[in-house]
């Protein structure tokens, strides 16, 4: 479902079409047990739908990364995703590229 690619200090993550509670555990697995100081590039190009749990999952990741000094970049958000991130204010916590 989620595609993960490690290289050096950058972990590239490609999210599936449906970003929802269905991938809750899998999504957590991306960042737990990683060394401090890595960078996550999360690719939204496949994402078609996204629910409130998805926002919650991003927020949990953000909280974890803050304490582990990791960077998170959200890549290729389509207008729908960008809209959800902005009206919810969740987007303001991340680097949107």
């Amino acid at each position, binding site marked *: 479902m989620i595609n993960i690619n490690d290289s050096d200090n950058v972990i590239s993550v490609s999210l599936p079409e449906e970003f929802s*509670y269905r991938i809750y555990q899998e999504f957590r697995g991306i960042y737990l047990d990683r060394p401090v100081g890595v960078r996550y590039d999360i690719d939204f190009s496949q994402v078609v739908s996204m629910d*409130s*749990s998805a*926002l*919650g*999952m991003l*927020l*949990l990741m*953000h*909280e974890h990364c803050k304490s582990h000094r990791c960077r998170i970049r959200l890549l290729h958000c389509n207008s729908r995703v960008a809209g959800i991130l902005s*009206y*919810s*204010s*969740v987007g*303001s*916590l991340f680097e949107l590229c």
Partner: protein
Amino acid sequence: MSSILIVEDDPVTRIFLEALLLQEGHQVSLAVNGAEALALLQMRSCDLVLMDILMPEMDGYEATRRIKAQSRHGLFIPVIFLTSVQTDQELAQCLACGGDDFLNKPPSPILLNARVRVWLQRAELTNRLAIDRADVENVILRMRQDAQFDPHGLRVLMTPLGKATGDIVLSARRTDGVQYLMVGDFAGHGLAAAICGPLVSDLFYRLTRQDVPLHEVIGQMNTLICDRLPINMFLSAAFLELDRTRGAIHLWNAAFPPVVRIRDGKVVDRCAANLPLLGILPSLDIPRQAWGRRWQAGDRGYLYSDGSVETRSEAGEFFGVERLEAFMEKELFPGGELESLLTLLTGFRGKRNWSDDITIVEIT
């Protein structure tokens, strides 16, 4: 000590199984066909059933179907089929009728004991979780029974998927008669979302009693959720302040579906989101005035969570805002029941399951 029911018409197999299970320290009861098994279970439940397939009067498939139907809202009782049939289709039927596992006949003692042990453990865990869940639900239901809810001018339709819902409706009047209404939706579903309700509800009623302005109530609610709940529990909600005497309505919409106002059977305006989700940004500035309009007697306001508009048809189409607004304009005017929305949604979704709580509130 676990109690196991053996359903088997062949006496030799029955005695063999009984001896094995007694040796392991289980309590054993016996039935010679499905009908007798059901009669026995009526009198006394058991922890696990070993089920033959072909038996006179009632076969194992039918007996299993009935056992599972009867225990659907109660205990989980595993059923293990003992089968001498070998076709895949018949084995698949063992599972299709509600059975949990199957063993070839005659089973080796080692294999039988191993399977029985695993299923007894699983059943115990499942049943303990069900009891815990029921307990927590009762706690939440009790906390939610606040006599403080003021139904003045309201009609409310709330259909939680389970007993516990993440949707929340609060209403109270200040000492000067101005009414505050909040309709919200906590992130996620189920118990975790439901348990957040009482937390914000206490704050809402306490502050309204103290005549605190609504934008300050919202600000304090945001701080409370930030401080007290994990980051992934946040709230989208609409807050409405209605002063019927002065004829004024004010709205704050925190990432909630648009609030709709209807006059003479037509949508006259909508208040879309003008605030972010609550519980994420600790320092959130809530404006004193967000959205304000004149209110006339006869106006109707509607606040709804996204469950209804996101109901999908079998073809995958969303029910959508237009259908919902048409329902508000035509069906609810004059005097239609909110409940008829459920009929409409049920027809629309066809064989699909409900996926979210449905909440809609009308204020007049």
